[in-house]
């Protein structure tokens, strides 16, 4: 069965009363949703809380899901709207939850144990976060959806409720800005560049 078909089967089961089947959907999409929230909010604790709220919202409105779009797109739509709401409400970034902090520290320790490639991975992620902080939320949205999650231009336009031309223009601008703000990291040699084809 296809990936989307699997999701539909799970949704039917959940709507039929098997609430625990929702854990499979959370497990399947948590990395993407947490990653998106982290790029948008740039704060680990807030991103974890936001991702959790996205899944809870999805669960509450699951009987309203129509199979015209993929479940992953529908879920991202909730994540996009939720992160926008949080930004509008100027979420508090100072409080990082203990859970998020502990997981982050465990990740860093694993990276230290796991050798240079894992450590580079953590450093690269931290540095790209710093660069993303210089971009406007609109630019971060489009860049994350395209580069991190591989959405097509038309899908991004649908998710963000804007025109295809607006997506292209924002993405162009976002890429240039990201490159500009990341330049000094490359100059300092902090981001390890791997040689290879496109």
């Amino acid at each position, binding site marked *: 069965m296809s990936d989307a078909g699997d999701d539909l089967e799970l949704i039917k089961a959940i709507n039929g009363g098997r609430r625990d089947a929702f854990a499979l959907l959370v497990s399947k999409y948590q*990395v993407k949703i*947490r990653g998106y929230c982290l790029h948008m909010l740039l704060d680990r604790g807030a991103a974890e809380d936001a991702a*959790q709220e996205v899944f809870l919202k999805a669960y509450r409105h699951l009987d309203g899901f129509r199979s015209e779009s993929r479940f992953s797109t529908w879920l991202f739509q909730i994540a996009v709207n939720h992160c926008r709401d949080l930004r509008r409400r100027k979420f508090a970034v100072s409080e990082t939850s203990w859970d998020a902090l502990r*997981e982050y520290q465990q*990740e860093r320790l694993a990276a230290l144990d796991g050798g240079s490639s894992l450590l580079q991975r953590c450093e*690269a992620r931290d540095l790209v976060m710093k660069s993303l902080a210089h971009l406007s939320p609109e630019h971060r949205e489009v860049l994350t959806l395209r580069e991190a999650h591989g959405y097509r231009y038309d899908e991004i336009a649908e998710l963000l409720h804007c025109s295809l031309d607006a997506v292209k223009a924002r993405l162009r601008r976002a*890429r240039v800005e990201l490159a500009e703000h990341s330049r000094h990291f490359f100059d300092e040699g902090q981001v390890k560049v*791997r040689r290879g084809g*496109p």
Partner: protein
Amino acid sequence: MKHYDRNTLFEFVAGESSAACATEIQFHLANCPQCAAGAEECRALRQALQLSPEYSAHFTDRVMSQLRATPRSIRDSLTAVFRAWFVPALQFACAVTLLTLHYIGDAGPDLESFLLSGTHGETATEDLRPQVSDLGIALGISLEQRDAQGS
């Protein structure tokens, strides 16, 4: 020598350039160290953007425990209220009705008149007292209160 801007290089490393354009850029990068370095930077940035948080079983557990604590929708809330209050109330009402019908059916007009008029029937008043007492308890009325009101 002309140089490519960052956006063009980004499109190239993302595989978004047309075939003709990609060939041209590829050729240019082989001869231009500046643009080649720019393309490598774009590639590194794309890779860094694609780094996701690690999978966390703890996150799934947190969502599921939160989810168990909260109702799913208004319909769920109403269902929960219905199950918690309405169903037991309905069961109690049915039990009382059945009990009442049972006693009225058994006792006939004597009990009915005893309950409704407050006057003791001429026949079998004492025989009815245990039944009346049970029914009174079911309805929350003590027989002594009933007698006090009758007198």
